[in-house]
């Protein structure tokens, strides 16, 4: 499913002294099959943006919009926002939001805090039950739960009947992710899926995302602070700052201009830092900022020099 966003704006607590413009005229397209990164400083609007994608934050209906914004004299009224995910038009009130949420899975920040059921099995099956028409078949449900748990790297027979609260932090998070992907959404949106995990846990989560990308979920949208994660994994990344979209570029181009990111208070990946350090010493390395590619480029250069 292709995601089309045009002129999307959003204000928290409008018309109060607390009003904050979280999104300001954002326009971008995410193609099917992408591993799309969303980066930005805290409060840049990236979480607000991804929450639009499965209708948790709705577009104001067109009628309301006309009432709210009085066009000023001499300037054109703002263009209407468009938000489409595949065939779903999120600006339309009649859209079946439940069907939309079935196709667009959403893993929130610290998803382990949404676990609630008595057993892991029940918790993972929660989404499945909600989205199925009528009573779900217990055999099929068990099969789907088993599959979802195995793809996140957990053993069904070992933990299915345990309480989710008895698991370790990393296990809890993987159970929570299993609870979202169990319905096989076409688009999977993750908000900081690796936050708060140790380096090994982070790597496991990223490997898990690669396992499901393309086969289980066609498109993956990931919000992250970790630029190494973005450089290693993403096909393209969108940079947000104070609600505005700064640019959408593949990592190989994005991290070439390190100054722009550091000006926005963002980090750059380790490989980009190394490229800069080498450039200062008069060594030009051209790579796409993936670790593997960087190492290969460095080795090739070394081989050429000696």
């Amino acid at each position, binding site marked *: 499913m292709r995601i089309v966003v045009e002129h999307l704006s959003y204000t928290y607590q409008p018309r109060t002294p607390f009003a904050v413009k979280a999104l300001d005229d954002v326009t971008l397209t995410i193609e099917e099959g992408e591993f799309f990164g969303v980066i930005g400083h805290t409060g840049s609007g990236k979480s607000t943006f991804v929450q639009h994608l499965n209708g*948790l934050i709705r577009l104001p209906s067109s009628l309301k919009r006309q009432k709210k914004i009085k066009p000023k004299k001499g300037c054109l009224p703002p263009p209407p926002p468009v938000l489409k995910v595949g065939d779903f038009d999120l600006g339309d009130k009649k859209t079946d939001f439940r069907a939309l*949420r079935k196709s667009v899975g959403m893993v*929130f920040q610290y998803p382990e*805090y949404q676990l609630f059921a008595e057993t892991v099995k029940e918790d993972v099956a*929660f*989404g499945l039950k*909600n*989205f199925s028409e009528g009573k779900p078949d217990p055999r099929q449900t068990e099969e789907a739960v088993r599959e979802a748990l195995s793809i996140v790297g957990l053993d069904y027979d070992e933990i299915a009947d345990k309480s989710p*609260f008895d698991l370790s932090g990393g296990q809890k998070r993987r159970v929570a992710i299993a609870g979202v992907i169990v319905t096989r959404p076409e688009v999977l949106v993750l908000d900081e899926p690796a936050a708060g995990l140790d380096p090994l846990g982070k790597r496991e989560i990223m490997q898990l995302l690669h396992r499901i990308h393309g086969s289980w979920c066609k498109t993956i949208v990931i919000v992250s602070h970790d630029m190494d994660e973005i450089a290693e994994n993403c096909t393209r990344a969108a940079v947000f700052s104070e609600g505005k979209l700064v640019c959408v570029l593949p990592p190989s181009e994005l991290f070439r201009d390190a100054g722009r990111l550091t000006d926005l208070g963002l980090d750059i990946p380790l490989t980009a830092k190394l490229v800069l350090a080498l450039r200062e010493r008069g060594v030009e390395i051209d790579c796409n900022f993936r670790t593997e590619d960087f190492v290969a480029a460095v080795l090739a250069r070394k081989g050429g020099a000696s």
Partner: protein
Amino acid sequence: MKDVAFGQYYPADSFVHRLDPRLKILFLIAYIVAIFVASNFYGLALCAAVLILAVALSRLPVGKVFRAVRGALILVIFTAVINLLFHSGKTVYWSCGILCISKEGILFSAYLVIRLVLLVICSSLLTYTTTPVALTDGIESLLTPLKWIRFPVHALALIMSIALRMIPTLMEETERIKNAQKARGANFESGNPLRRVKAFIPILVPLLLSAFRRADELGDAMEARCYGGKKRVKYKKLRFSWRDLLAAILAAALIAGVVLLRVYLGEIV
């Protein structure tokens, strides 16, 4: 969820905002006393005039003030209707069994409604213009005499301020968990009442867990910073200023005026 009027502070820089919170609490009490002392419409008119002056000085948008009344609207209407129908009087316009509408009844319900509306507006004026922190500081300071009978005034004030501070946090948390479960297809809007109550379990369990976790963490953080020592000083010291003197004179004048009006003009009916 976000438009809860209760205890909502409206930030502005005004005469009323700058008053000492201790005095504001005392003014509220004095004002409530004045409303109850006022026995006729002249007294109430005086009360209303003072309140209008206070609202004007507070620079609150009028809409905010009326929103507070809207919250108590059902109570106001209920009081008005009951008193209108059951208050007996000499000049009866309509009657049916024990129900009757009389001139006295109409006047009396109007009197009660005005009282109620004034009460609601003046108490919301306090919460609109005082930050929760200042409010608990004020309450703590006013309760100081209770320390003599070993009442843990400070602990009480701390519990109040933590509770007030956690309300928005917990509401945010609720919203987040609700969104997460909605993303997994949870449905909170339809179904029979029993099903709707059951639908809240996926919100309540994580919410309770997180509340306990937060309480634990806060306790640890406070202990780590040596909370519990005997002597504590305030970061923000409360001080009286010329504004407070002015307001106190106004409050005294209000009480005196209401008492005089009661003595010289008597009761309404």
